């Protein structure tokens, strides 16, 4: 019962702040709305007993990625979006694409042919999770067990991003002598 109340509060919060991202004119307001939306989603993860993912969602997504976005908005001084009179251009195209996207997601969700089995979540009570050593330990057992290869690939991806950042950013600056 309390889980249902919590779910509705978090879900309505997440969706309304997500709408705020799109509908607000000031880019910083959009960014902050996105931070709030991510925090609400983290709450939803916590409701699903995925405590580790919830904490990481706040730390990395809301606390690192959005800080990057905020930096960019502040450094580039993006101004406010101008008001329009009448519906924005391409509204029909956007609506059609949106509906197609939703149809696609529904199709994928119903498909059983992707080779990924979604384990049943009925065993995920707080007592069971605590008895297994906590959510982080369970995530770890998966990460360093069956999903080891994706984990190492993620590491490679991070290094690629590191190299890419430096290459892209340094291109804008005059070539310096390496010390």
């Amino acid at each position, binding site marked *: 019962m309390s889980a249902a109340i919590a779910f509705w509060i978090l879900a309505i919060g997440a969706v309304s702040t997500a709408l705020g991202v799109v509908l607000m004119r000031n880019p910083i307001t959009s960014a902050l709305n996105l931070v709030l939306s991510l925090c609400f989603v983290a709450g939803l993860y916590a409701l699903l007993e995925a405590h580790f993912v919830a904490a990481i969602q706040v730390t990395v997504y809301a606390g690192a990625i959005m*800080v990057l976005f905020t930096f960019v908005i502040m450094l580039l001084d993006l101004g406010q979006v101008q008001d329009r009179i009448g519906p924005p251009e391409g509204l029909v195209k956007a609506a059609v694409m949106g509906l197609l996207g939703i149809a696609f997601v529904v199709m994928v969700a119903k498909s059983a042919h992707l080779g990924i089995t979604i384990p049943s979540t009925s065993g995920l009570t707080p007592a069971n999770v605590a008895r297994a050593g906590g959510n*982080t330990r369970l995530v770890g057992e998966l990460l*360093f067990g069956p999903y080891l290869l994706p984990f190492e690939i*993620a590491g490679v991806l991070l*290094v690629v991003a590191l*190299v890419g950042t430096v290459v892209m950013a340094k291109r804008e600056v005059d070539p310096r002598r390496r010390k």
Partner: protein
Amino acid sequence: MNPYLPVLVTFAAAFAVIGMFLFFCHAFGPKQTSKIKSDPFECGNPPSGPAHDRFAVRFYIVAMLFLLFDIEVVFLYPWAILFRDLGGLGIAEMSFFLVLLVGGLAYVWWRGALEWE
């Protein structure tokens, strides 16, 4: 009892304290605006130039690096808990990952992206 309930209570208390402080700000204290007071503060000089100038790209690099290393730290946490159970194989797996990241850091350092911050 759900462990997040005390967290919510703590948040409520924090909001109450913050609200109290903001109320104090607003309620007490005079309100006399004047042109001079409202100008941006520049140690007495008249405000010069727009408030937003162009900024060094270094700050963007720092933010990106922070993000990437934060993700690395996130992967280290479940490993740290399972460290004893995984034994030697676990150390090998994580060593590979760490070596990759250290290599990345070394590259970034060598290219001078960490200079003159």
